[in-house]
Every structure is written in C-alpha cells, then in structure tokens.
C-alpha cells in the first residue's frame, strides 16, 4: 500500500486531466456550447470525483486545469486567457475556491474513513490477541508465548516483553529482527515511568512512551501497567502502530502477565494441597497398617511366654509373629521405596540380563505373599535385554503381590515374558474379580485403593504407584486392564536393547 500510493496518484492525475480534456472537447468542439455556467458545473463534477477517489493534490491540479480551460474555451473572448468582463473574474475565482474547498472536504472525509478502518483493524487484532491470551494455559511458557502472539497479531518485526528482576531484566522477545535491548536502556526508560499516570489527550496515550534507536530501527517502549502500577516495558519495532493502540496492547499484556502469575500461584497451591493430602493419606494408612501387626505380635509374643501354651499352639503363635513381622518389613520396604521414588534418588543402572532372572528376583521379594499361589510362567525367549534389572524386578514384585492379594489361593497367576523390538514386556494376569470401571483411571494413584478392595483386601495402596514410579526411572510404563474372560492383567513395558543369548556368550 505504501509503495502503491504514488502510482495511484499518477494514474489519478492522468485520468483527471484526460476527463477535463474530454469534457472540454465535447462541450466546445462537438456541442459547440459556449455557456460558461454549464462548463463550470461539469468541471466541478469531475473535480469532486477526483477528490473522492484520488488524493487532494490530484483534485487541486484538476481544479487549476479546470480554471484555465474555463477561461480559455468558454469565457469571452474565447480562445485567449484575457477576460473582458470583470464579472467573469469573480466567477472564475469562485469556481476555483469552490473546487478547492470541496476537494479538501472530500479528502478529509476519506482520511477519516481510512483512520476508522485502521482503528477497526487494530481493534480486531487486539481482540484476537485477548483471545490468545485467555487460551494460554501453561503459565511457564506464557510470557514468551505472549510476545509471539503480539508479534504475530500486529505483524510487528520485533516485540519484547521486559520485566524487571532486581537490577536485571527478563526479556521475552519475538519477531524476525531479534534486537538486543540492554538492561541500561530498559532501566532508563522505566525510571521515568513509575512517576505517575497522566493521559495525554492530544496524543491519546498515557505518559511514559519512549522511543530509542537500536541498530537503525526505531524501537518504541511502552510501560506495561496494571492499574497505575508499572510492572515492566513492552518494546515494539517494525510497522508503525498508533500510540493509543500500543497503550491498549500494553494493558492487555500486563493483564496476561498477571494472569500467568496467578496460574503459577494456583498451581503451587494445588501442589501443596496435594502433598498435604498425601501426607494425611500416608498417616492414615500407616496408622492402620502398623497397628494391626503390632497388636498381633505383642499378644502372640506374650502368649509365647505363658506356661499354659501347648506345643502346637506355640508353633501357631510364633507363626503369627513371623508373618506379621514379614508384613511389617514389606511395609517398611514400600515406604522406603516410595521415599526414594519421591526424592528422585533412583537412577537406572542398566546391564545385560536374561528376563527369567528378573522374574526370579521379583518372586524372591514377595515369596511370603505368594505362598500357596501357583505361578504359570510363559517365557520361551532366549534373548537378553539391557535394562536395570533391580528396578524392573521390584516393579514386577509389586504386580505379583497385587495379583496374589486379589486371587483365591487355588487360582493360578499367569506371567508372560516377551522380548520384542521395543524391549521387555511382562504381563501378570490374575483370576480375581478384575478392575472396577471407576477404579481404572486412578489405579496407579498413590494410596488409591479399589472401591471393593478397600473392604476385602488388606493393602496400603502404595504398590502400583511405586511400580509406576520405578519404571518411570528407566522410561518404562505399566498399565492395567480387564481380561475379556475375567480377571485383571497388568503389563510392564521397559524399552531396552535386545540381543541373542548366544551372541553375549561370544562377547
């Protein structure tokens, strides 16, 4: 549009001259008219059209030409620029004045319309931007994203949102130019801003706009204000933008920044609340899970001391103690593992291992819980996998324990080990009641226990969550599902390199 204007101006001027020449030829040569009034009105029409569709300059030029033609062709003595009747001088001047004033009016109206269009365009951009801002959810990225939105919506080659942090400035920039604003420049511009909020009615902006030159670009700095308080600066370069629009833009950006902070705060409040919930869930769980074994151990131990006990009973009582001690140590093991997962204290320690080794290790960890359960193992694989056997086995142990708790003593637990291109896949399938639909999404939440399970099966709700945490350390996954013919299946997938067992013996 900027480069098109001179062209359209030249074309307009040409068209206006041709039109005036045409009118002159038509009236003078063809119609042989010599009434100056009709000629003047016709010229005026052409001048007004020129003023409406082209620039003021074209219209003025057309006016001058019109005056000359009127004088030459229609005012006696025709064919000369001399004017015999002094009244015609007046008519000629009035014609010139009318045409110039009319051109002016029309041009001003056009300018207003253009301005209104531009304002509407900027309003539309502001509206789009506000929608972008409201749809932003991730607060961490929000401010950088905001700068990109502004640059895109307003077609600006450089946009930077600058927030003070002590003496330093956090600058989030966007756009093709990639200018470097220094802390000094920003601090200097910001220093004058905090003074107060005054509206400059003539420029239609609030005080505090600065303009600096940077690498041959004029960068405008606008304060970001929340109410009267300035929280930073918005820098913009490239396309000229109305100062009033820049103010509105800065206001919107300030609100977006504030919103991002609120989102952050809400998130950390949420995290704090969740960790509180976790703590109380842990305490409640521990309260029950410690007290019962402790009571049983205490009573059974004092029974053992008593003289009234028969040998059979004595064995029974010591069995109670051993079982409950085992339960306590498993509980402590769980708490410890959970603390390690939470603290991020686990690191994957990968080595080549045969999948059956992992199953053996897992089985060993939960041998008490598995007592009396039949394990049906399907592992025809002769391939080695490279992963952390310790973490994988612990995770598997939790799945086995879980399956044992939800299966009748007679029913088998089916374990399937598969090595494929992705890595190691282990599925544990039980013949228990399966997973309730409402439990599925929360299965791996810490301390979450199935709606039915809570009543029937003792447990802490830690196992599956620990399994998931451990597997995550080696980029593995675990999921649970119901089998079509009853029972639940839990599957572990650990991404790993694989190779043939023979190859390893050579190497």
């Amino acid at each position, binding site marked *: 549009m900027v480069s098109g204007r001179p062209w359209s101006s030249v074309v307009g001027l040409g068209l206006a001259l041709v039109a005036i020449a045409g009118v002159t030829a038509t009236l003078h040569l063809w119609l042989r008219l010599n009434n100056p009034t009709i000629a003047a009105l016709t010229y005026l029409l052409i001048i007004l059209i020129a003023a409406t569709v082209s620039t003021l300059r074209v219209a003025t030029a057309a006016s001058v030409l019109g005056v000359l033609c009127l004088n030459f062709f229609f005012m006696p003595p025709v064919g000369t620029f001399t004017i015999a009747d002094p009244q015609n001088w007046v008519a000629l001047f009035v014609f010139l004045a009318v045409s110039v004033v009319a051109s002016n009016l029309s041009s001003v109206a056009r300018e207003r319309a253009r301005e209104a269009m531009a304002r509407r365009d900027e309003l539309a951009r502001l509206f789009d931007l506000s929608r972008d801002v409201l749809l932003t959810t991730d607060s961490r990225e929000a401010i950088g994203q905001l700068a990109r939105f502004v640059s895109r919506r307003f077609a600006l080659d450089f946009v930077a949102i600058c927030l003070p942090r002590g003496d330093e400035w956090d600058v989030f920039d966007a756009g093709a130019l990639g200018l470097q604003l220094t802390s000094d420049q920003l601090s200097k511009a910001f220093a004058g801003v905090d003074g107060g909020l005054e509206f400059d009615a003539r420029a239609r902006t609030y005080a505090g706009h600065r303009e600096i030159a940077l690498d041959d670009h004029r960068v405008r700095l606008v304060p970001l204000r929340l109410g009267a308080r300035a929280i930073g600066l918005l820098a913009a370069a490239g396309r000229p933008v109305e100062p009033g629009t820049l103010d509105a833009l800065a206001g919107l950006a300030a609100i977006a920044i504030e919103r991002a902070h609120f989102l952050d705060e809400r998130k950390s409040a949420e995290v704090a609340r969740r960790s509180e919930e976790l703590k109380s869930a842990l305490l409640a769980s521990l*309260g*029950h899970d410690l*007290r*019962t074994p402790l*009571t049983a151990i*205490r009573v059974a131990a004092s*029974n053992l001391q008593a003289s009234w006990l028969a040998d059979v009973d004595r064995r*029974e009582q010591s069995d109670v103690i051993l*079982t409950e001690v085992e339960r306590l140590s498993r509980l402590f093991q769980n708490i410890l593992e959970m603390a390690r997962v939470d603290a991020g204290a686990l690191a994957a320690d990968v080595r080549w291992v045969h999948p059956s080794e992992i199953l053996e290790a897992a089985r060993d960890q939960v041998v008490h819980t598995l007592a009396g359960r039949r394990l049906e193992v399907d592992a025809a694989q002769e391939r080695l996998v490279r992963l952390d056997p310790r973490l994988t086995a612990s995770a598997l142990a939790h799945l086995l324990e879980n399956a044992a708790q939800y299966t009748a003593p007679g029913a088998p637990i089916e374990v399937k080990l598969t090595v494929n291109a992705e890595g190691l896949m282990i599925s544990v399938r039980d013949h228990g009641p399966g997973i309730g639909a409402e439990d599925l999404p929360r299965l791996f939440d810490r301390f979450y226990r199935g709606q039915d399970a809570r009543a029937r099966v003792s447990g802490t709700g830690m196992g599956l969550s620990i399994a998931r945490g451990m597997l995550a350390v080696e980029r593995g996954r675990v999921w649970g599902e119901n089998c079509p013919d009853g029972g639940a299946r839990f599957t572990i997938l650990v991404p790993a390199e694989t190779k043939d067992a023979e190859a390893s013996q050579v190497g």
Partner: protein
Amino acid sequence: MTRPARILLVDDEVPIQRALAPLLRSRGYDIEAAGTASEAFEVMRARPADLIVLDLGLPDLDGVEVCRRLRAESSAPIIVLSARGGESDKVAALDLGADDYVTKPFSPEELLARIRVALRRVFAADEAPAGRLQVGDLVIDYDRHRVVRQDEEIRLTPKEFDLLALLARSADRVLTHRAILKAIWGPNAVDQPEHLWVLMAQLRKKIEPDPAQPKYLISEPWVGYRFVTEPADV
C-alpha cells in the same frame, strides 16, 4: 459362674484372631470369632455371647453403627478395639452403648482386665445393688450420701457426691464426658465440658490423697473418666 463366659471376638484381621483366641481360651473363656459385622449379628442371634470384643474397623459396616445395632439386640457388654487417633469413633461407640475400649496396640493384660470388669458387671447384676462401696481406704455410702476416708468423713457438695457416685457405680468402666455431663447437669449441658473439669478438680482435691496424681478418678484423655477400684496395681 456355673459355665464359662462366652466371648464373641469380632475382628477382620486374621492374625489378631489367631493371637487373641488362644489367650482368651487359656483364661477359661469360650471364644467365638467373626470377621464381619453380618457374621457377628448372625452369631449373636444363634448363640448370644456374654461379652463382645469389637474392632471398629470392620469391612462391611461402620464400627459405630455395628455397636448401635448390637446394643439394640443384646445387653452384653461391648469392648471396643480401636486405633489411637480414632477418639471420635471411640466416644461415639461408648455413647451408643459400648462399655469400654482398648487402643491398638494394646497389651494382653489390658484387654483381659477390661473383660474381667465388664463380665463382673454382667454376673453381679443379679445380686442386690450394694448400699456402699469400699475401695482401699475409701468408703462410699450411697444411701446416706457419705464418703469416709480412713475413718474421717469427707464433706462433699451434692453435685460432687453425684459425680463420685455415678463413676463409682460404674466402677472400672470408662464414662464419656458427654454421658457424665448428661447424667449430672442434664441434656442441655452436654456441650459444656468446663462444668465437669471444675467439678472434677474439686472432687479430686477432697478424695485423692495426691490430687496431682489421682489414683481413684482417672482421666481417659479425650474420652472420659474412670473410677478405678484396684488403684494399687495400676
């Protein structure tokens, strides 16, 4: 006692049953075990027990509710097993008719003592209520509203005597704050425990040899008070 007392042990934790049942049998009680509330109700209907030991954390029904239903069907004393921290459940169970409680993990002796006290009440209920009670060197004469310690009369206000008599008549059993407030000040006072604290402090000053370390009027924190008849070995 012509036949052994029958005790119903209601706890869903198998190890607790396995440890408690032989202990109670060794003391000559006849033991029946139940793992759920519905099982307990069934047993009570078929062969009513003389005493119920009830864990409040049953799988199928809220412990307090179990307590209420058992009380509705039977007058057998109920001893509640509960977790520390579950004070509100404990108090609710006591207010709904449970007779006493022990907190897990408890010592076997503690439970046995509570069972003895509760059963004594059952089997003594047939005898005519005594007009007086003697505990150590303390004699409470209910009929004449007199309390004597070491042959010396202790002057109590009527409210103080009411409180002492109330606790002594339920000797060795815990009475909740609520139950005491209701019995002495009426139902409108149950939420004003400060009455009880003040009165209890006055009573202890007169009754207890050392009010700072009471041996007869024992406080059960957050739950209530207990009048202890065997202060020497506590």
